[in-house]
């Protein structure tokens, strides 16, 4: 029972990271209608920046984190401007997908050139010790607590931003209907850029949290969490922000429980199986809206 609670907490913590990454996927998908395969590699860039700042340059951790977020935001905006914007309105949505894969290769190989292929050990940024509950039977690490709290704060801020501010409302409008939004005087390109900026900034935070909890860093660190987060986004209903949270946390819990109780090799299989079953029962994900197809 005690171990189950520990696993659940760890699952929620991992799930919170997935949720933060999934937010980036889901927002970009909702607005630009594209799968940004390079999103996972932005996570890697974020973690490497912090690694570079703290371990190689000896910067203050807070400065490193801010630097990392700033760099990822710039990166997101640049990628959108150079690689994705020219393809807006292209004949096939596959085209943007392949370009995103190209960007993903590009980022991985840049990191490979700068930092080499060896796995780096990432020093955790969280310096408050583990919390013990029930006379030390349940130990919750500082990373776990920080991750869950950060995820909650991000969720609340993002929801408020979208519900209460003008740029947030513009985002909703653009994701609903690009043409109509433009007619209403919304700067569509600017809104898409803003979405990429927010998504990439969140990716940097997710990368730092992920590498604090699982301290190994290589140029390919981002790709599997990226895929998992994408699955989380689909799971919760792609395009929906609360969906990303629910999908991410469910995915994290399933993965940790599967690894603990069934087989560590089969954990990914279980995650993917659950995804397929959920989609077969509810094809648009848990919170997804069903779109009526017009003839």
């Amino acid at each position, binding site marked *: 029972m005690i171990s189950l609670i520990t696993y659940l907490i760890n699952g929620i913590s991992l799930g919170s990271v997935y949720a933060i990454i999934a937010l980036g996927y889901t927002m970009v998908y909702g607005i630009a209608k594209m799968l940004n395969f390079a999103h996972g590699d932005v996570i890697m860039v974020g973690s490497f920046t912090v690694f570079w700042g703290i371990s190689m340059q000896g910067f203050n951790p807070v400065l490193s984190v801010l630097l990392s977020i700033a760099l990822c935001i710039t990166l997101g905006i640049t990628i959108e401007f150079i690689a994705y914007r020219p*393809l807006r309105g292209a004949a096939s949505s596959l085209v943007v997908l392949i*370009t995103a894969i190209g960007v993903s290769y590009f980022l991985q190989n840049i990191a490979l050139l700068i930092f080499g292929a060896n796995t780096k050990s990432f020093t955790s940024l969280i310096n408050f010790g583990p919390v013990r509950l029930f006379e030390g039977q349940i130990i919750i690490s500082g990373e776990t607590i920080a991750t869950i709290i950060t995820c909650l704060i991000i969720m609340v801020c993002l929801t408020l931003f979208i519900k209460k501010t003008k740029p947030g409302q513009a985002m909703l409008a653009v994701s609903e209907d690009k043409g109509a939004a433009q007619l209403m005087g919304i700067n569509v390109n600017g809104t898409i850029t803003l979405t990429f900026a927010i998504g990439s900034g969140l990716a940097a935070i997710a990368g730092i949290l992920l590498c604090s909890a699982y301290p190994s860093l290589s140029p390919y660190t981002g*790709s599997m969490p990226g895929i998992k987060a994408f699955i989380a986004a689909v799971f919760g209903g792609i395009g929906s922000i609360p969906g990303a949270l629910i999908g991410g946390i469910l995915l994290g819990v399933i993965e940790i429980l599967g690894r603990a109780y069934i087989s560590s090799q089969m954990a*990914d299989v279980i995650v993917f199986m659950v995804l397929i079953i959920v989609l077969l029962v509810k094809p648009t994900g848990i919170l997804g809206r069903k779109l009526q197809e017009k003839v």
Partner: protein
Amino acid sequence: MKDKLKKMPKTWLDNLITYGMVIIVFLLVQMFISRGLVSNLLQGLLVPLCVYVILAISLNLTVGILGELSLGHAGFMCIGAFSGAFFSKVMADIITVTAVRFTLAILVGALFAGVFGFLIGMPVLRFRGDYLAIVTLAFGEIIKNVVNALFVGVDSRGFHFSLKDSMSLGLEADGDVIIKGALGIIGTPRNSNFTVGIVLVLITLFIVLNLINSRDGRAIMSIRDNLIASESIGINVTKYKLMAFSISAALAGVAGVLYSHNLNSVAATPKNFGYNMSIMILVFVVLGGIGNIRGSIIAAVVLTLLPEMLRGLNNYRMLIYAVVLIAMMLFNWSPQILAWREQHSIKDFLRKRRKVQ
């Protein structure tokens, strides 16, 4: 001769060019090899090249002709590779004629991959677009991970399966573990060579091109172009979708058999059967032109050779590959660049000059 060429339907001529291209390249390469002009490195690349070409053609059937995005193609290749290699290893003493055994192994690989394609296609093909992409990706990863944990042994009592370790198979003393989990199958016969590869490429081409130009193929393409319209004229959408998907999977299985018989051992790693492989095949298809079979052959060859050509640049080669990929996508598909190309096209320029004269 010229009249005859003109009388032939245009698709025939088009297909002949495709077959001819493959055969001419084959003859040229054979000529270069016999003169010793091809380096060992390049010779080692010839069979993988055939594998990628078959994969690209077969994925183009799903993506280009059926119009559904699949990111799990490497999974079917994995099934083909393992079932074919398993067959070869079990039958090594029973069927001693290599040609017969290898042919049967290819058929077994195709059959298994095709059956899995059918079984997976049934639930999955109800999805569309990005959802289909993620579900196929999930299935591809499931296949890779399950094969990675699979132990299969054979003894006098028959086959034994386990997902834990070789101990739990409970083999008799005369038993032999054939698929060893993460180690895969060790000691597959190396039957693949360039000639076999080219023959398989030609067979794949024959199957796919004939399918496209048949009544069934037109039904499949009508589903791609407009699902609702084709449904309303009485086309059985599920049947044709499954048909294209299973044929595509079976052909990927053939590529898998070719792949596994080119190596001493075959194991399911993220590199050879993971989603990265599926994505790489998709890159061939999209860059070659979605729905254009000849294009995917050319793209597969060029993109496989490109990193090798850039080998002199060492660490920069994959970086350049990525930049080339992005640049090619922008050049070929960006609406603005397409409009610019229209205005400044060389053909038009020459035509105008001629008119002035």
